[in-house]
């Protein structure tokens, strides 16, 4: 396949790549030297020309994000978001473990570009080995003069601290990450002001994902315009995708954006287990709406816009596939359970919505539910979306409502079978009176006009 493992994953398993000696032999830190001879604005121009979009999930153009950082002499910060906790995502882990110096080089260049003198890598606490690797690499970089005061004789100084989290998905959200980094509970903040204006310690802050920052030295090497030639017009460059679930060859692969979904699932990932057929997949981590694997979907190019047009999102590039053996209700329950557990509790729609969705799914699994519960659940999702400070609630609402929409017959069959098991018999046919009907019991058989009961 074209462009497979061609940039960030090129020779990633070379022995000793995590040491500065091997990294420099491969041309590492050369781009830092070149960047320091350029004006920061010229570095920014290369990033803008490359069109590289953030690899963390939101897909916002990195160069534009950098250009939002105000000029001036105030304390500015660069934060590398390595709190990779989205279910199904594990690309940053492999990058940091095997090639930590390229991340450090990207951070130094990025910090030079925006004029930050203090940078942090916020790595999730579970990545013990990776954080140790980064700590050792940072120490080497200090010893070699790439970090600290007056880097390589230039005017630029930078301190880099590896900060370990302690296990909270929400800290991957940029403002929650900043709160956590300031030593508080990781609650998201109201936006605006955006972190680019008022972020860490109230200073302008640039927050980027590991993979995005690791692309920076490569973009400088080939030039922004050259970088933009790879991939599609609006999704430039290569992207690491993490494939997991019921496939033969799960793992991280680097592809050119725009590769067909069919090629990814059947060539790279080796197809389904023997004798199975694919049922559906999450195209971009557990927060993305589930797409059934029809022929149309298999023909889609895997890039930001095509996946969005198909009704889902590319997110962090984490593909979770499941085959016909897996019940959609189990997947839905696991998804809801995760977000219920990880909701920080600051906004009610998310705190209550995730909680009740999980409880209703539990009800379905225990065989106490009726088909009406599906409508209630779907309406709960609608009321979460767009009503919170951050998108954690939406991240549950989107996949759950997509599963109810795409697999409603399976949900209904599951409910019937579970009721049967439970000795409750078939549920009475009921209709939902719709979201505008107001409070009242929804216990009217199909075909009859519902009348609200007075309490």
């Amino acid at each position, binding site marked *: 396949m074209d462009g497979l493992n061609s940039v960030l994953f090129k020779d990633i398993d070379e022995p000793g790549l995590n040491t500065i000696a091997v990294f420099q032999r491969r041309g590492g830190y050369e781009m830092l030297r070149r960047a320091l001879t350029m004006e920061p604005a010229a570095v920014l121009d290369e990033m803008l020309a490359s069109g590289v979009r953030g690899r963390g999930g939101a897909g916002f153009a990195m160069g534009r994000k950098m250009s939002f950082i105000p000029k001036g002499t105030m304390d500015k910060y660069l934060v590398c978001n390595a709190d990779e906790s989205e*279910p199904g995502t*594990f690309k940053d882990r492999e990058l940091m473990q095997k090639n930590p110096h390229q991340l450090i080089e990207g951070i130094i260049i990025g910090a030079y570009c925006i004029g930050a003198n203090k940078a942090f890598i916020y790595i999730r606490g579970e990545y013990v080995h990776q954080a140790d690797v980064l700590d050792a690499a940072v120490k080497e970089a200090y010893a070699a003069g790439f970090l600290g005061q007056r880097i390589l004789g230039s005017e630029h100084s930078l301190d880099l601290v590896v900060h370990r989290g302690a296990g909270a998905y929400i800290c991957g959200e940029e403002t929650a990450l900043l709160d956590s980094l300031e030593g508080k509970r990781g609650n998201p903040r109201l936006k605006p002001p955006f972190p680019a204006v008022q972020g860490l310690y109230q200073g302008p802050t640039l927050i980027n994902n590991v993979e995005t920052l690791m692309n920076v030295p490569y973009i400088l090497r080939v030039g922004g315009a050259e970088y933009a030639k790879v991939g599609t017009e609006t999704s430039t460059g290569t992207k690491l995708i993490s494939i997991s679930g019921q496939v033969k060859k799960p793992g991280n692969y680097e592809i050119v954006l725009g590769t067909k979904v069919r090629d990814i699932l059947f060539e790279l990932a080796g197809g389904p287990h023997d004798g199975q057929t694919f049922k559906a997949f999450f195209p971009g981590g557990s927060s993305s709406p589930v797409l059934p694997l029809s022929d149309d979907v298999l023909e889609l190019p895997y890039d930001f816009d095509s996946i969005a047009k198909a009704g889902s999102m590319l997110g962090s590039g984490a593909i979770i596939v499941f085959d016909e053996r897996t019940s959609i209700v189990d997947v839905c329950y696991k998804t809801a359970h995760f977000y219920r557990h990880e909701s920080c509790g600051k906004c009610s729609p998310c705190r209550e919505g995730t909680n009740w969705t999980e409880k209703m799914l539990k009800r379905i699994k225990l065989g106490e539910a009726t088909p009406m519960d599906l409508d209630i659940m779907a309406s709960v999702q609608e009321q979460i979306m767009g009503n919170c400070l951050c998108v954690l609630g939406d991240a549950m609402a989107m996949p759950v409502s997509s599963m109810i929409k795409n697999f409603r017959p399976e949900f209904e069959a599951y409910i019937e079978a579970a009721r049967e098991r439970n000795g409750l018999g078939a549920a009475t046919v009921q209709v939902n009176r719709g979201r505008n009907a107001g409070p009242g019991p929804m216990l009217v058989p199909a075909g009859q006009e519902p009348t609200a009961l007075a309490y």
Partner: protein
Amino acid sequence: MAIDPSTVRRYAHGSRVPGWDEAADLDKDPASIPDPATTPVPAHVRAEIERYMASYPDLRSAAIPSLMVVQREHGWLSPQAIEQAACVMRLTPAYLTAVATFYDMFELAPKGRFDVFVCTNISCSILGADEIYRAIGEATADDPQFNVRPFECLGACEIGPMASVDGEYVGPLTGDDVLRLIEDLKAGRPVLEDKQLRRRKAASDHWRENA
């Protein structure tokens, strides 16, 4: 002070019985910073916490690393552990408790010394992680040395079903690995050496070699 979750009384439907959060000692001022004269802190713990405090523009940023230090020293975040961290950082124990209760990796009740976190999220569970978790739980049920917890996605879905054993990622786990994992831990050996994630190559190479 930290409330031991196992002692909180609950109704059958899961809500806590009113009064669960009432202070045990109403005379105590919750906002006092521990007095260094009466709160002994081991020198190496103090040095480590102070080193963290120095590396941030705001010393409160060192809250998570410092709590990790005292948790490692005490085995869990006991009231004494939090007081020691609070004493060095000149913060109230209440502030640090608020931080500690937010994050999954802080243990607010005594626990065993072997941490086994089994991922039970989507990718792992569709490959049988729930059975693995149950098997490990049953095999270690009467050994207080083990702290077996179901965990949300640990970020190693390619080796699902997987577990983090004292920070070491191992997988893909099968039913046969459960006893081996427990024996390795008890004997102090590296856990499941052939299944450690850190030895695994990138997917393209791994599958070429293990076709």
